[in-house]
């Protein structure tokens, strides 16, 4: 191997919540999510940084683990990388062990375990600013002498907070060739573990360590948030406020975007010669993709809440409160965080299930993740609720917000029921542990929050400008050609390919109350849920027979759909697995076609049955 050209391989190791991911960002400048719950780092994350000598350094951010004796897939990956057991990832040439100085013992224990592997190592004492404020005493020089590796204080969340570490990384002070002495076998015996604890106590004593003062506020807040009754009431209130806010705060900005889209449509129609191109722009692009864009404010508000709750350390506490409920349907309390992430998007949610130790539990969590209401459903729910449900006030609440809350609840309740059924089908009764850390509270970091929101906005906009726009253009062609015969009486779209397809599909969907416009919209909507809204926009714009082409979708739906049809479609959307990316991720995570197929099958069946019942009851 040519050492002069290959970048130096480094790896970050540490317990969950030690600030490892923040340090990774600081070192590589890479933009990624930093969160405050255990198990956020489920993906392999690598970044490069340039060095003065031109060789460069490649830094791998390993999943957080409490020990090299793994209980989850994530932790096993960390151990295997360090031991050089992964085929595609050679063992790092330098290990940067990140230890939260506020919680020194637990992190230093892992550092001792890593040091035993004999890899060159640097210890980063992270969050030193907070530790000092809370009265922690550590003699870094003594610690370094005792441990035999360089020890540097860092503050990963501050600019320049990793300069001392970078200096060491670029020096050759750690480049002591050592022989790697991997432990035999997988586990550590109880004797080994006790020896490690004795070593740890000796090390802490030698470094003159004194623990942090407990922040009395943390205990007070926890007494309230973890209270069996008050805690649950607060959790419900938090979720409730979140869903109300998605509706009420987003109202004004959504009106602006909608107004802008309408003016843009009118302007385009007025300044272009009428013809296929004008129709494509006005009906396909502005009417189709534009109607999805309107929902950007709601998505920003939803993610604002999710990111802030993540960052503050509240989520694991919610998992604690709900553990009993989850346990009664056969889920682990650890399933809470993947399931909550699924409310943003099922894909990161399904990937986060890697932190669940037990395979059956993990599979159950994966199977119900798509039932959690992801943000792609928001445009559909938002459109239908605004069109069909009056914005009446019921006490302090808005009826529209209540309906949205009910839809989210329906997703959660049906997920729990499915988990319950799966529990009864499964023969294995293996116990799955909780053992979840409840991290210290912290104020959500504003920069972190803005960065996280910006990433979501980028993802949403690139979907609107990418797949959604492309599907809308295809749909416009299918809905416009072949052109109607000269003696046509109905709207032109009925004679087009899409119109014929819609008429055909209506045989399937008529029993659940869907008209031919919905039937057409569901076809591109199979790829991604929110596409259906754009598709309805295009289909209705084209069936409006020319006079009111840029007319708004919402009043059109309000006047032409029955309440039963609208509710049936809402219920359909609670269940229908209309997201190819989710099914692809399930295939990847379970490594078989079996589970995505079962998932698609059972969800479509539930969607059809539930929509059928809703339509029949309400008609």
């Amino acid at each position, binding site marked *: 191997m040519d050492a002069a050209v290959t970048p130096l391989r480094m790896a970050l190791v540490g317990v969950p919540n030690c600030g490892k991911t923040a340090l990774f960002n600081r070192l590589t400048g890479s933009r990624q999510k930093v969160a405050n719950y255990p198990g956020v780092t489920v993906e392999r994350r690598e970044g490069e940084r340039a060095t003065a000598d031109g060789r460069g350094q490649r830094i791998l951010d390993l999943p957080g683990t*409490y*020990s090299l*004796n793994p*209980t989850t897939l994530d932790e096993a990956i960390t151990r295997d990388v360090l031991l050089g057991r992964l085929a595609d990832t050679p063992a790092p040439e330098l290990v940067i062990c990140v230890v939260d100085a*506020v*919680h*020194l*013992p*637990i992190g230093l*224990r892992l550092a001792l375990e890593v040091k035993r592997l004999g890899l060159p190592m640097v210890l980063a004492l992270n969050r030193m600013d907070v530790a000092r404020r809370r009265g922690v005493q550590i003699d870094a020089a003594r610690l370094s002498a005792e441990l035999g590796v360089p020890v540097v204080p860092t503050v990963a969340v501050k600019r320049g907070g990793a300069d001392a570490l970078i200096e060491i990384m670029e020096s050759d002070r750690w480049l002591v060739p050592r022989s790697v002495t991997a432990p035999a076998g997988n*586990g*550590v015996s*109880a004797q080994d*573990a*006790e020896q490690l*604890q004795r070593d740890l106590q000796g090390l802490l004593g030698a470094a003159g360590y004194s*623990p*942090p003062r*407990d922040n009395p506020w943390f*205990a*007070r807040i*926890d*007494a*309230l948030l*973890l*209270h*069996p*009754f008050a805690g649950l009431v607060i959790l419900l209130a938090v979720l409730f406020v979140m869903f109300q806010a998605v509706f009420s705060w987003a109202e004004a900005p959504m009106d602006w975007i909608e107004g802008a889209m309408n003016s843009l449509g009118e302007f385009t129609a007025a300044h272009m010669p009428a013809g296929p191109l004008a129709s494509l722009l006005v009906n396909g692009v502005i009417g189709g993709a534009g109607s999805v864009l309107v929902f950007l404010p709601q998505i920003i508000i939803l993610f604002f809440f999710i990111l802030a709750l993540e960052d503050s350390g509240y989520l*694991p506490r919610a*998992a*604690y*409160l709900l*553990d*009993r409920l989850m*346990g009664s349907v056969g889920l682990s*309390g650890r399933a809470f965080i993947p399931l909550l992430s699924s409310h943003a998007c099922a894909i990161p949610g399904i990937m986060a299930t890697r932190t669940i130790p037990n395979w059956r539990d993990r599979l159950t969590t994966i199977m119900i993740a798509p039932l959690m209401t992801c943000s792609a459903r928001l445009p559909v729910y938002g459109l239908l609720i605004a069109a069909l449900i009056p914005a009446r006030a019921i006490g302090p609440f808005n009826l529209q917000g209540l309906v949205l809350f009910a839809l989210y609840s329906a997703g959660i309740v049906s997920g729990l029921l499915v988990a319950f059924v799966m529990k009864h089908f499964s023969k294995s*009764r*293996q*116990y799955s*542990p*909780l*053992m*979840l*850390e*409840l*991290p210290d509270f912290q104020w959500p970091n504003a920069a972190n929050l803005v960065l996280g929101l910006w990433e979501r906005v980028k993802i949403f906009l690139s979907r609107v400008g990418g797949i959604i726009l492309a599907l809308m253009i295809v749909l416009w062609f299918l809905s416009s050609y072949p052109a109607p015969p000269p003696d046509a009486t109905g709207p032109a779209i009925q004679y087009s390919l899409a119109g014929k397809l819609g008429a055909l599909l209506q045989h399937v969907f008529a029993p659940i109350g869907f008209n031919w416009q919905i039937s057409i919209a569901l076809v591109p909507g199979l790829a991604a849920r929110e596409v259906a809204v754009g598709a309805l926009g295009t289909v209705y714009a084209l069936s409006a027979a020319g006079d009111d082409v840029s007319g708004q979708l919402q009043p059109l739906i309000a006047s032409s759909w029955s309440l039963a049809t609208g509710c049936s479609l809402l219920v359909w959307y609670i269940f229908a697995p209309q997201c190819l990316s989710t099914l692809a991720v399930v295939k990847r995570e379970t490594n078989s076609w079996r589970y995505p197929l079962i998932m698609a099958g059972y969800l479509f069946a539930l969607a059809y049955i539930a929509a059928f019942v809703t339509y029949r009851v309400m008609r």
Partner: protein
Amino acid sequence: MSDRSGQPLALSQLRAGQVATVLGLLESTGLDAGRDASQSLLARLRDLGFVPGARCEVMARMWLGGDPMAVRIGGSTFALRRAEAAAVRVELAVEAGVARESLARAGASAVAA
């Protein structure tokens, strides 16, 4: 579960607000989970800091049997299920209930095991 004479206790027997010193872990968890799972659970408890001499405090317990419970040890707080806490042998510390009155009061409504 190892409690016959009243002392030592299992961590799962403590009320919210009580402070205790860890004596050690049981040999096996008595859980209906294979031997390997049981051993890895014990190893993890040890890794989290449940080692002889460590001081721990029950911060909160849920109702109906107090499952799960929040336990503070080594400056960190962990949520444990009752079955997990049952594997930790402890002895009540004298300072119990004095250190954090407000917390003990808040936890008084939690049902003791």
